[in-house]
């Protein structure tokens, strides 16, 4: 009897848990696509011939649902509180910005009527004031008009001390944000601010506006919107899709926004399934349980392609390369000689690495600015030339005097400490590089770390920031598509006084610093491009950074998906156009 009771209790518990789990809101029925023709088109009326038998109403169209296999769950959906790629990549899905970037990384208006420029008068002559002219037809998903007040409110929320927002950049650099009327937003900077295009209410690292009519009452009542319900359930938003449901750890669902001013999207629903394991993501895509996945290992690509998955590269400014430790005191003295740095580039057969390890799916990177308009087009990667590497080393005084296979100078052997994260492809790269460098007499001491440990700050004694390594491998694109980068700035060298500095190579080159300062205030694209050409050429010639491979974000799409285009800056910029084959 007791055993029977025990079993009964266990069974009841299981059933109760199952019901609890299943009691969460069930799949939302997606409304069928509107049957009315767009307002701009004249309605077509067809009369049924009287002689024909009554036609049975067609079965309701099956909802067009696209399933994303998303390896990281969102932290929050409030764009003010997140910099997480797995959320910012979805900005074009559920929020709106002043402009997006297309597949050529060119800006395309979203909330504004035109992209500001000096020519159209939206940028002042002194280049300090930028005016955003808003469209007349923009509305939140609940039908409330989007006005300049929403921009002002977003700005105020960013700057409010009660709100622990993710970043205030570049809003804390502004002198003012004014809204002379409902359709105009005027932003003034104290100095010309060149990166405005990729960060002013735009860009993946920028900010999307938030609805004042929803969040203002929350802020007034609580003095903060940190814990607002809208942050995890933005049921009123302004993208082509609108939030419907998010079940922690399991899935999130966005449905078509019927009030989207550019027209209802072609898909009815986007379903994001959170699957943190890479191997499971691959299995789910291969099995057809998902339509979209991303961040594949290169070695998984053949299997995906065999299963009919189309791979699209999104060049988001990331280029894998070696940052050479140039710290004035802590850097390896051998690497202060440009000839030794260039020898590293000539000695490493990166073309072979790209073919063998990365399956030829990308290219050798020449500079940190590859696949952007900022790289001097005359730059090509250093070719593989071990003889030249040996000659450069000899010219710099490094030869193998004791016959142990490693070059030396003044009794010191050239052995470099080379560290990166323990990502598989990086460890493979280390092994190949070690072999190639050894062939010209350069020894390497390989180090690999967990990613969070490797990227810990100087204050945390992170190996990428404490100057204990001679070669530091990773990729970085802080403000893509903007070229501004603090990793080369003298003021960003980590020190005891500035333990969170991001210049992990410790380089402070006067000429480079002057060029970076110059481009900071060049609002004119062409002028700035010329300065960046000079910067990229200089870094390349000095071999301060040695490129390994261009590191695009790999996206996979099932073969039923059509109209998909990818932007490096805003991957899903045309998601409203995506469709599936019947």
């Amino acid at each position: 009897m007791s055993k029977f009771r025990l079993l009964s209790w266990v069974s009841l518990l299981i059933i109760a848990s199952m019901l609890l789990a299943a009691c969460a809101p069930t799949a939302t029925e997606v409304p069928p696509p509107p049957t009315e023709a767009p307002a701009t088109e004249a309605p077509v009326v067809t009369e049924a011939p009287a002689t024909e038998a009554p036609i049975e109403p067609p079965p309701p169209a099956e909802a067009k649902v696209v399933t994303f296999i998303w390896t990281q769950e969102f932290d929050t959906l409030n764009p003010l509180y997140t910099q997480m790629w797995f959320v910012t990549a979805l900005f074009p899905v559920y929020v709106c910005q002043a402009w997006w970037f297309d597949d050529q990384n060119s800006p395309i208006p979203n909330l504004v009527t035109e992209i500001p420029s000096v020519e159209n008068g939206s940028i002042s002559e002194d280049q300090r004031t930028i005016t955003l002219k808003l469209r007349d037809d923009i509305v939140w998903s609940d039908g409330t008009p989007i006005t300049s007040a929403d921009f002002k409110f977003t700005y105020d929320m960013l700057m409010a001390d009660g709100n622990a927002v993710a970043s205030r950049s570049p809003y804390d650099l502004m002198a003012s944000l004014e809204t002379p009327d409902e359709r105009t937003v005027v932003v003034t900077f104290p100095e010309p601010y060149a990166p405005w295009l990729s960060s002013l209410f735009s860009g993946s690292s920028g900010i999307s506006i938030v609805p004042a009519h929803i969040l203002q009452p929350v802020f007034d009542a609580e003095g903060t919107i940190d814990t607002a319900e809208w942050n995890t359930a933005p049921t009123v938003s302004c993208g082509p899709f609108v939030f419907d449901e998010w079940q922690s750890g399991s899935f999130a669902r966005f449905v078509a926004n019927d009030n989207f001013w550019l027209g209802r999207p072609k898909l009815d629903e986007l379903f994001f399934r959170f699957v943190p394991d890479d191997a499971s993501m691959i299995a789910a895509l291969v099995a057809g349980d998902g339509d979209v996945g991303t961040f594949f290992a290169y070695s998984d690509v053949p299997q995906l392609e065999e299963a009919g998955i189309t791979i699209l590269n999104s060049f988001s400014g990331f280029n894998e390369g070696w940052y050479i430790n140039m710290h004035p005191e802590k850097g390896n003295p051998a690497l202060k000689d440009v000839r030794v740095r260039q020898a590293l580039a000539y000695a490493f057969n990166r073309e072979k690495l790209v073919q063998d390890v990365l399956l030829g799916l990308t290219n050798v990177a020449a500079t940190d600015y590859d696949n952007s308009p900022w790289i001097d087009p005359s730059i090509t990667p250093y070719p593989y030339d071990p003889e030249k590497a040996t000659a450069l080393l000899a010219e710099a005084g490094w030869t193998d005097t004791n016959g142990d296979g490693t070059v030396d100078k003044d009794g010191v052997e050239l052995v470099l400490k080379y560290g990166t994260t323990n990502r598989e492809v990086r460890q493979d790269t280390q092994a190949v590089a070690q072999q190639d460098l050894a062939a010209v007499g350069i020894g390497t001491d390989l180090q690999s770390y967990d990613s969070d440990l490797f990227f810990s700050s100087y204050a945390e004694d992170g190996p990428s920031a404490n100057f204990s390594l001679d070669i530091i491998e990773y990729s970085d694109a802080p403000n893509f598509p903007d070229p501004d980068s603090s990793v080369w700035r003298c003021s960003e060298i980590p020190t005891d006084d500035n333990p969170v500095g991001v210049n992990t190579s410790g380089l402070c080159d006067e000429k480079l610093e002057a060029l970076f300062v110059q481009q900071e205030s060049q609002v004119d694209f062409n002028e700035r491009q010329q300065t960046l050409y000079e910067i990229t050429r200089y870094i390349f010639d000095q071999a301060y950074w040695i490129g390994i491979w261009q590191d695009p974000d790999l996206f996979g799409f099932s073969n039923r998906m059509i109209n998909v285009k990818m932007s490096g800056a805003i991957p899903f910029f045309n998601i409203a156009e995506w469709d599936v084959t019947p």
Partner: protein
Amino acid sequence: MTRYILRRLLQAIPLLFIISLVLFILMQNMGDPLATMGGRKVTRTEDRIRLARQLGLDKPILVQYVYWLVGNDWAKTDMDGDGVAETSGTRKGVLRGDWGISLVNRQPVTKVVGERLSNTLLLMVTAEAVIIIAALLIGIYSALNQYTAVDNVITAATFIFYSMPVFFFALLAMYIFAVNFKKWGLPYLPTVGMFEPAAGQTPAQVAWHMVLPVATLSFGFIAGYSRYIRSTMLEAMGQDYVRTAKAKGLPRREVVYIHALKNAALPIVTIIALDLPFLLGGAIVTERIFGWPGMGRLFLDHVSRSDTAVVMGILMMIAVAVIVFQILADVTYAWLDPRIRYK
């Protein structure tokens, strides 16, 4: 017995206090929560300083612990960075039922944990039930049929399954029963998740999606537990009281299930009692591979972002559960073995 339970509960209070302090200090060494707030780029220096101030991460560790424990509504905080503490705190502290706010999503810890608990219990309780039932059946069968061909096959199989890593079994099962079965045109299981978006979250869908995770969670434990049961049953079956029961002419079923199994179950109770608290913690590897939204994944996600409030919430919940289940195990011991008396 009541006095014994009360005494054990009172002893648990200082123990939990010490556990919380140790865990809190260890958590501070898990990484920098601000480092991950910049997404793919390094958190800007100005933002780092501001966030540390607003989130109270610039305070000494013991002050942070005190705030976590008793709240900070009695203290003032400098929110605007002018060096003057002007804003009253809002946290009430764990002792007043406020487990804090997650650094990752700014949601209350109780909500964050609560959203996952039912999913974890569903998966883990089902798996535990499967484990216990299957292990009992296999263990008893093996003990009653010692050294037969079937017993030898079971023994070999249990050793194979016991030594197989969970992730390997999980991925192998996924590729065979989900990916390849589909490719071969056979009835197939789903790869990941709790339900199909088109079908919705129905009990049938959830049950269907549980098959592979439950199988993965169970196989190793069934193998291990069945060996324990086999050996304890073999020992019990050789005891005088079993011989006496047989000599009295009791039916074999009664001899095995009432006299032998009840006595053989004592060590199993200890093992299961140790397992039960960790049911709340979920299964990190299995949940990760099958995309099951449970506590294991929650723990991993928030540890990786150094989210002290959520991680402390989960760990303290498990600590309490360990203590409670240990007391329950002691009570069960007394029920199973009349010779045991607690004072």
